């Protein structure tokens, strides 16, 4: 068996507050295999997003990784120089944010911001980039990509924005996408569309994904594996169907029950 694409070992994240230091994550282990979707579920405030950000080494200043290893493609990314890290971000590991309206810069058009990613991570010419942007927007199911590329984030609907966000994430052909609650701000029909889109991306591009969510419906539809985060640890981790049918940990049981009702 080859090594997994992403291996998180014994990750401990401290959170600093005026009241002192607290452990947010304690000794977390998690693997993501190539082109597998792993769902990280947990209640809000449990540190799901922080795990996602720590993979990109973008934790906010109030948090720090105390110990542990994050190994991506056989490289300990907590120890690579910043320059190298920068080229990993966006090119090998991309992130889809929960709220695309605030994750896009309001003063630049969608096309302009996608162009930035391509400019940094590919050697394409200006003309090629332009074509690539239209292609990407088209591939995520955006009608009239030419028009949308010239629009500002606030001019798009929520669903279109999320699609554009995903298009930006897959722009440089990453091997891993960290999707931070990609559907929780969308209504149910749009959720279904985005889930479909993720399925398509996964099938066509073979991108592995860390799906951070608290919505077991989405997990059920997308994920190969579930990792349940509670109290700073992974309390249960296994194939989706198995865990949804037969939850062992009380917290998972609670989650699964909430899905049924």
């Amino acid at each position, binding site marked *: 068996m080859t090594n997994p694409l992403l291996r998180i070992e014994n990750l401990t994240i401290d959170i600093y507050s005026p009241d002192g230091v607290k452990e947010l994550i304690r000794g977390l282990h998690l693997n993501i295999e190539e082109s597998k979707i792993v769902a990280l579920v947990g209640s809000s405030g449990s540190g799901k997003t922080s795990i996602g950000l720590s993979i990109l080494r973008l934790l906010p200043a109030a948090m720090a990784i105390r110990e542990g290893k994050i190994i991506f493609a056989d490289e300990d990314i907590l120890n690579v120089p910043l320059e190298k890290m920068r080229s*990993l971000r966006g090119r090998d590991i991309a992130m889809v944010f929960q*709220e695309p309206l605030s994750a896009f810069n309001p003063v630049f058009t969608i096309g302009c911001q996608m162009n930035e990613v391509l400019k940094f*991570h590919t050697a394409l010419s200006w003309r090629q980039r332009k074509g690539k942007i239209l292609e990407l927007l088209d591939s995520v199911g955006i009608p009239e990509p030419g028009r949308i590329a010239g629009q500002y984030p606030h001019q798009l609907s929520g669903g279109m924005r999320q699609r554009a966000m995903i298009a930006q994430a897959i722009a440089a052909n990453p091997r891993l996408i960290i999707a931070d609650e990609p559907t929780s701000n969308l209504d149910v029909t749009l959720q279904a569309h985005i889930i479909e889109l993720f399925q398509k991306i996964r099938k066509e591009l073979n991108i592995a994904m860390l799906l951070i969510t608290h919505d077991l419906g989405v997990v059920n539809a997308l994920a190969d594996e579930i990792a349940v985060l509670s109290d700073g640890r992974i309390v249960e981790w296994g194939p989706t169907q198995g865990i949804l049918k037969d939850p062992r940990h009380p917290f998972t049981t609670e989650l699964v029950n909430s899905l049924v009702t």
Partner: protein
Amino acid sequence: MSKKEKHLSQFQLAMRQFGRNRLAIFCFWILVILYLSAAFADFLSPYSYNNEDRNYSYCPPTKIHFFENRKPVRPHIYGTHLTFNEIHKRVYVAEIKRRHDIKFFVKGDEYRLLGFFPARLHLFGVDAPGRIHLLGADSRGRDLLSRILFGARVSLSIGVAGVFISFIFGLLVGGVAGYYGGTTDNILMRLCEMFMMVPGFYLMLALRAAFPPDLNSLQVYFLIVVIFSFIGWASLARVVRGMSISLKEREYVLAAKAVGLSDFAIITRHILPHTVSYSIVAMAMSIPGYILGESALSLLGLGIQDPYASWGNLLSEAMGIVYIKFAPWILLPGLFIFVTVICFNVIGDALRDVMDPLLKMEGKAP
């Protein structure tokens, strides 16, 4: 509401609102006229800035006559000769016999239009030996209107150039200090405070004194721009630093980091553009300071040197009360400075009203 109207950008909305401010529009056009006249100073002025005739020293504004023997004729002026009255004051006596018609598009002093095209054409003028001084002449008999127009080149451009450089510097320093925080922030901000601590005018004088006094006018011009930029960046940098501290916490900055942009790209593309509404207002508001600063330096003889003209060094001729008494027109460059400064201030105020989002929320928005 039509589709087009719905998608007006923030900038277009702001400009539309700006357009409703009549006074600001009026001032804007005054400035446009002033800047255009400065650009085409060679053509608009009857003489070159150093065309002198000592026989016309302190010659008062030339009277234009439209009638001769009560009959309307072409506008013309009369030649004059210089005498002194009983208190030895200069008196220019018009000689009816020496009539000079005012002609348009006449050939006069040679110049290069916009610095490139050699030309001799002037908008108006009179045939030699007559001289027309619509705003009077200075001590050496040089036409004040011509010198004001040429002086506008220096006085009007120095503000824009100074602001431009100091703002690039201020934005970068402020952006970097705010974005990195910590020690970088501390060092840069203490540096800013060092500059802000010294009163601007004395710093300006000290810096001017640090350079040799016998520079040519072009060098002095650049020196003044550099000095002003050197002084002006600090206050802007402090404000931008504050904005940058708050802007760097926005999610799109995190997103920009997540796609692997470099710090420089994040600062210049994702942080500084959001300070633009503040910076534009601050720019419009600080241009008058630069214009006045140049005038002050030139007035003290430290700026642009004779024979080159700037509004400040034209005013330096008016330093003695005696000259103001018998040749009050040499104060006119001051009027130009006054009008320009007022115009920039009015526009700056109007822009601030337009850019301030709080004002917009008070129901004024379309």
